[in-house]
């Protein structure tokens, strides 16, 4: 049994009068990749922020393992164009003088060519790779990635997901990530959690893609090429209409 790194139990989050998260339970153990998927406004990033301790849940608890080191990769940086900062300098700030660690990490994520570029000039994929390297500097037990493939073309997305699972395989760290993309992430994840304020459903991508309802929806060809999460019919919430969005993809 691998070590439990983070447990979120019975979390509700109210901001103002809005219920943003409802009855959330999730566990993530060493070496595991857990992906949260869901439509826009489902509360995916909010859930990450709760898991990271940046937002205090209204009820329920978030329990990190003692001494847990988290590497966080935000969705994007909102740097003002007037802020002159190169990739090299940002990494130097993050590594706290241990520069020897940085170069191998930048090679691993394949971003050494942007070391001297200003952060504002990076493409989506380059920035994601740099932020990933930055998160790895801390040698985290748990990587938390907010939409790691955002703004990256399909080819680049596949590569990034492969990189993420390679990092997990080599280091044995756990990965908690958010994606609104259904198809590509499936190959790279152990567990999927479909969120729409509450957890609509969760499970392994395999169990889901072999589900008869999946083939019915997308046809056998789709089953071969991609794995898409489909609802467990026995676990159907009538108020989960938003999960219709998967059909549009």
């Amino acid at each position: 049994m691998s070590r439990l790194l983070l447990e979120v139990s019975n979390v509700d989050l109210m901001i103002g009068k809005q219920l943003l998260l409802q009855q959330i339970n999730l566990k993530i153990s060493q070496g595991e990749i857990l992906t949260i998927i869901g439509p826009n406004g489902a509360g995916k990033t909010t859930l990450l922020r709760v898991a990271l301790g940046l937002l205090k849940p209204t009820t329920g608890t978030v329990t990190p393992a003692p001494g847990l080191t988290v590497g966080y990769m935000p969705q994007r940086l909102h740097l003002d164009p007037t802020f002159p900062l190169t990739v090299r300098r940002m990494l130097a700030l993050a590594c706290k003088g241990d520069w020897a660690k940085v170069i191998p990490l930048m090679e691993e994520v394949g971003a050494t060519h942007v070391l001297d570029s200003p952060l504002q000039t990076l493409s989506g994929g380059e920035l994601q790779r740099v932020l990933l390297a930055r998160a790895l500097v801390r040698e985290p037990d748990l990587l938390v990635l907010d939409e790691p493939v955002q703004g990256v073309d399909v080819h680049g997305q596949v590569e990034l997901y492969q990189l993420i699972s390679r990092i997990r395989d080599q280091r044995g760290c756990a990965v908690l990530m958010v994606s609104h993309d259904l198809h590509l992430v499936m190959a790279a994840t152990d567990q999927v959690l479909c969120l729409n304020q509450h957890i609509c459903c969760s499970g392994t991508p395999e169990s889901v893609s072999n589900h008869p309802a999946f083939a019915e929806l997308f046809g056998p060809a789709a089953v071969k090429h991609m794995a898409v999460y489909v609802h467990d019919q026995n676990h159907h919430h009538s108020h989960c209409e938003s999960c219709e969005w998967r059909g549009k993809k």
Partner: protein
Amino acid sequence: MIDDFLFRALLGGIGVALVAGPFGSFVVWRRLAYFGDTLAHSALLGVALGFILHINLTLGIIVICQILAILLFVSQRQRQLASDTMLGIFAHGALSLGLVALAFMENVRIDLVAYLFGDILAISNTDLGWIFVGGGLALLGLLLIWKPLLAITIHEDLARVEGIPVDRINWIFLGLIALIVAVMMKVVGMLLVTALLIIPAATARRFATNPEMMALFASIIGCLAVGAGLYGSFQWDTPTGPTIVVSACLIFVTSLVLPKAGS
């Protein structure tokens, strides 16, 4: 032959410009221009406080700026109103309250224009003391929180996850801004403080490839603007604070035709 008052003016102006460079850079990076402006607008309230408590007027301004900084920080966390709305209420509320408070004091007559636009030619040795001691301390404080403040500027949540005491550093930074805004008041006046913070920093951006360089260049450009402004004001008998700001603007415009760093 330099006149004594002109020498003090130059010294005070340079002191202020040196401090304004690094702070102005952070103000620009973190989009806090309106925040600094709001603090400056409370200066008259500080003057009124100074008269009431019989304390040094600069000290009165510093106290009021600090109180306002705390109020702003707290109210921004409530997130009930958009922050520019909030800042607008505080800025104009504080300015008007200051004017009303001063009107109530029958035996107090102040030179309003001097507070609005600065009175650098009337800088006393005490004022120079405030500028160099107060400004020096503020710079020292900024130096101590430099790295965590850069990390927060990159991404606040990221800094928080990595264990940087974000709230404490932000408090310290806003407190320091309040201090230097109060100190800068004498040179360019409450309406132009923000100009001296942001124009040199914005000018420096073109030539800087890292944050420290930009802060340093902003200080140097600020000094140039002060020098040119004093000279121009002396030459053409124009108000000094505004002439300094006009010089800063001219330097900014001129810089646009110069090549960018690293390109």
